[in-house]
């Protein structure tokens, strides 16, 4: 009777497989290393040459500093190596797990004295190591070169390490699971691409639909939620939702290890060993195409009613999409009727849910609380809220719900809410049409798109709230007969001293996170037509160093805050100048797209500027401006000041 393999034997076998895999991928590793080395050399050369030539690029960024050019080298080279890693990770991963998809390989590995699980785990670890270690090595080389020349490692580069680790392990694990489930490499790749492509689109459609039909629902708050990217493993490269991706990786690994033991070796070169990915891909693809056509037909009022048009379009789009997807995955019509059961269930579910949304059975859209049932209320302008990107929808509503207990303000808020409800009351086909607007705007964070949160604390203690994006009802809300009244009323709330103190970034964000501060003066001390052209930036330049500029910005803001506390907010006709401040937004990758992160190479990632009026009796602020040299003792602009002299060069410092 033979004994079961000990852990030591398993480890030995697993290690042998790992070494074998390393040898097999040796050539690919060499190619990656050569390309990475060349890339680093080229970027370093260009960065140093550009720096030494004292060239200013179109952003006004001053390259006459070797450290600055090395900083650029660090970030650009790291990103390029990062992208190379993504490409080679794909190559390694597909290659390493192809053993599951070839009958001859199955014969070889199936007959070896190593358990399937040990083999699978060894292969997975090989993929992790081959993907991550060489890239980390080159990151290290880049960092060492920079440090040797006196430029410390940029936070952006340090973040890349995390993104790389997270992205690589999540994607490798997900692909490994799909490889176990699929019978061919083609199906594995198609499933991986299909799910990564289709899931976020499906999530956007769902969110867009919810927002279109439940107009007060705060769906834009969930832009960076893990739900929007749950099966989109490529999103792990963003470096957000770290806990989720770690759990995701663990689950994929666990399922892969569980399923690989029971997987039939004869499934190699058949379509699927386990059909779940097939169902997921078919459902997602048919859902997207169905929703696309359904929304289109719904918005065009096909069959004289939006909902009917949607149902017709959804079926017309999803059925062929399902059939074609099935054909591609199964290379024929095998099991087409069995697979149709989950697809059919999806169609029924979607139609039922959209019907529910269309008729708003629970009166979500039309609900406005009666004045007498409201204990307190609040309103937040999301474009003027320091925590719009960090607080949850409920968190913001909770904050605002206790703001005003007086009847005047409560009435103002309720009137605004009523007008929003009336303007948002659309025909069925208009609701389907507004899904498109939602899709286009869905990835824009709320602080950029703006919008309002109205929140009530009712007499029974319950909090109820709605979020209104102006883009959905923009033309009506601000162009209607009563629009000026309601706008003015809102202005009264959002320009109040209390609102400023509670929600504005200028009053609440840390002074250490100021990224940009500018001032605008004109003859009347009010907003000029060329406000943004006439700004003086308190930023480092060839006359003022970085540290001094940062200190000056802090001084101005602290003085301004003191003035607001002591004197409150006045009539804007008595303004002295206008202050505009931007803060660092913290987590760069909340911005989503890689291009936005790349743009932070040249400019730090910052919030939109928030404007505030400096009034004539803001003595502390004015004193600070005099002290810094922006204004003279007679309060006129100091044209000999260091910041004024550099203002024409549009230097942006931090």
């Amino acid at each position, binding site marked *: 009777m033979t004994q079961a393999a000990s852990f030591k034997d398993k480890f030995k076998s697993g290690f042998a497989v790992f070494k074998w895999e390393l040898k097999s991928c040796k050539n690919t590793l060499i190619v990656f290393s050569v390309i990475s080395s060349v890339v680093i050399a080229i970027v370093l050369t260009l960065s140093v040459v550009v720096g030494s030539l004292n060239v200013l690029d179109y952003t006004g960024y001053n390259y006459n500093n070797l450290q600055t050019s090395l900083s650029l080298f660090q970030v650009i080279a790291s990103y390029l190596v990062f992208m190379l890693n993504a490409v080679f990770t794909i190559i390694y991963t597909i290659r390493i797990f192809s053993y599951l998809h070839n009958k001859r390989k199955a014969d070889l590995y199936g007959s070896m004295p190593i358990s399937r699980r040990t083999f699978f785990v060894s292969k997975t670890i090989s993929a992790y190591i081959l993907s991550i270690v060489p890239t980390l090595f080159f990151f290290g080389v880049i960092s060492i070169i920079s440090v040797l020349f006196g430029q410390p490692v940029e936070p952006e580069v340090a973040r890349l390490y995390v993104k790389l680790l997270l992205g690589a392990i999540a994607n490798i694990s997900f692909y490994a699971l799909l490889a176990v489930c699929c019978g061919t490499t083609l199906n594995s790749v198609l499933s991986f691409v299909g799910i990564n492509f289709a899931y976020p689109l499906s999530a956007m459609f769902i969110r867009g639909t919810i927002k279109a039909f439940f107009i007060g629902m705060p769906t834009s708050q969930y832009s960076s939620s893990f739900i929007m990217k749950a099966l989109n493993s490529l999103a792990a490269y963003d470096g957000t939702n770290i806990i989720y991706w770690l759990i995701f990786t663990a689950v994929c690994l666990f399922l892969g290890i569980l399923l690989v033991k029971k997987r039939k*070796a004869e499934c190699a070169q058949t379509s699927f060993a386990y059909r779940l990915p097939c169902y997921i891909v078919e459902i997602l693809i048919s859902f997207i195409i169905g929703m696309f056509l359904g929304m289109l037909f719904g918005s065009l009022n096909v069959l004289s009613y939006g909902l009917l048009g949607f149902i017709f379009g959804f079926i017309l789009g999803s059925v062929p999409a399902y059939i074609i997807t099935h054909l591609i995955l199964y290379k024929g019509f095998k099991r087409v009727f069995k697979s149709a059961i989950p697809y059919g269930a999806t169609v029924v579910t979607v139609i039922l849910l959209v019907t529910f949304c269309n008729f708003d059975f629970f009166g979500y859209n039309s609900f406005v609380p009666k004045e007498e049932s409201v204990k307190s209320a609040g309103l937040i302008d999301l474009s003027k809220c320091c925590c719009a990107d960090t607080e949850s929808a409920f968190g913001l509503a909770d904050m605002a719900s206790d703001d005003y207990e007086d009847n005047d303000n409560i009435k103002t808020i309720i009137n605004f809410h009523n007008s929003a409800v009336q303007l948002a009351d659309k025909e069925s086909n208009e609701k389907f049409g507004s899904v498109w607007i939602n899709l286009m705007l869905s990835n824009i964070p709320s602080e950029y798109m703006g919008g309002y949160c109205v929140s009530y604390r009712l007499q029974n203690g319950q909090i109820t709230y709605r979020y209104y994006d102006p883009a959905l009802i923009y033309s009506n809300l601000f162009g209607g007969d009563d629009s000026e009244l309601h706008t003015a009323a809102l202005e009264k709330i959002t320009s109040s001293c209390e609102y400023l103190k509670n929600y504005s970034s200028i009053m609440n964000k840390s002074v250490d996170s100021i990224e940009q501060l500018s001032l605008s003066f004109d003859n009347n001390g009010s907003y000029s037509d060329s406000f943004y052209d006439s700004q003086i930036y308190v930023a480092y330049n060839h006359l003022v160093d970085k540290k001094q500029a940062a200190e000056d910005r802090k001084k101005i803001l602290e003085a301004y805050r003191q003035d607001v506390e002591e004197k409150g907010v006045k009539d804007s006709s008595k303004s002295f100048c206008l202050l505009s401040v931007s803060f660092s937004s913290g987590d760069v990758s909340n911005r989503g797209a890689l291009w936005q992160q790349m743009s932070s190479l040249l400019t730090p990632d910052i919030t939109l500027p928030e404007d505030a009026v400096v009034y004539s009796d803001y003595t502390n602020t004015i004193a600070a401006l005099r002290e810094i040299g922006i204004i003279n003792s007679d309060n006129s602009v100091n044209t000999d000041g260091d910041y004024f002299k550099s203002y024409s060069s549009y230097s942006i410092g931090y």
Partner: protein
Amino acid sequence: MIEIKNVTKNFDKVNAVDNLSLEIASGTVLGLVGSNGSGKSTLLRMLAGVFEPNSGEILLDGAQLFENPTAKGNCFFIPDFPYFYNNSTIDNTATFYRELYPHWDESRFEKYCSVFPVGRDTSIINMSKGMQRQAALILALSTCPQYLYLDEIFDGLDPVARHTLKKILIEHVYEDKMTVIIASHNLRELEDLCDRICLMHMGSVLMERDIDSLRLEFRKVQVAFNQIPDVPNPFEGINTVGVWRNGNVFNITIKGTEEEFMPKLNALNPAYVSAMPLTLEEIFISEMEAAGYDTSSIV
């Protein structure tokens, strides 16, 4: 010893192996023969641990085989189309196997590298089919397997290589009590090498017998008459597998010993009777005909 107990293997609706039971003693060479699609390769893959039976069990020296690395360390399987990585050579594959197979013998490896004329540093996938098989054999034999499974191993080997292989296998069977199971359509080679033959058809075993007794069991008899006996079936009472008539001459395949059928034949007063043993191929064809798988149903 290998014990195969009521093993069934299905692929979708196809019963590749159907409730098969077999016992293979250690130190024997078993030839697996059968019609195309009879389940030989499937059985070998189950014995190698590649496929899991749908029902039944396979025991190797009393231990379950499937997903048992310790048991599989005593086996080696060379499939009909062995797989090698793009960059694999005999040497680097040996490095891998050395760590994986517990009974790897370096001296054997060196010995067989010199016996089979295959370059050690040459990429295996660039070799001819026959050389690839030789490379596979070098590696297989170096792992000192107790159980060696070979699927169409003679295909592509030149006569010298085949002769060498047979010699080596016999040597190991005799000295180390190695058990060899060979699936092949080359019955001529199996005849020289195997102790036992297992004939499969449509997933089941038609017959499993010692090769010598099998030969004794079948006879090819040529009977010529001056006057054919005037009876509907002159050979009634004789266990004939097949009868071909050419005028007054009958060629009969008889299952049974000469002591059993000769007196009955002589009683028919033939002018000429001659009995010869059948080749394995002739036995195979006869048995297949009996099972309904013969050329008359195809041509």
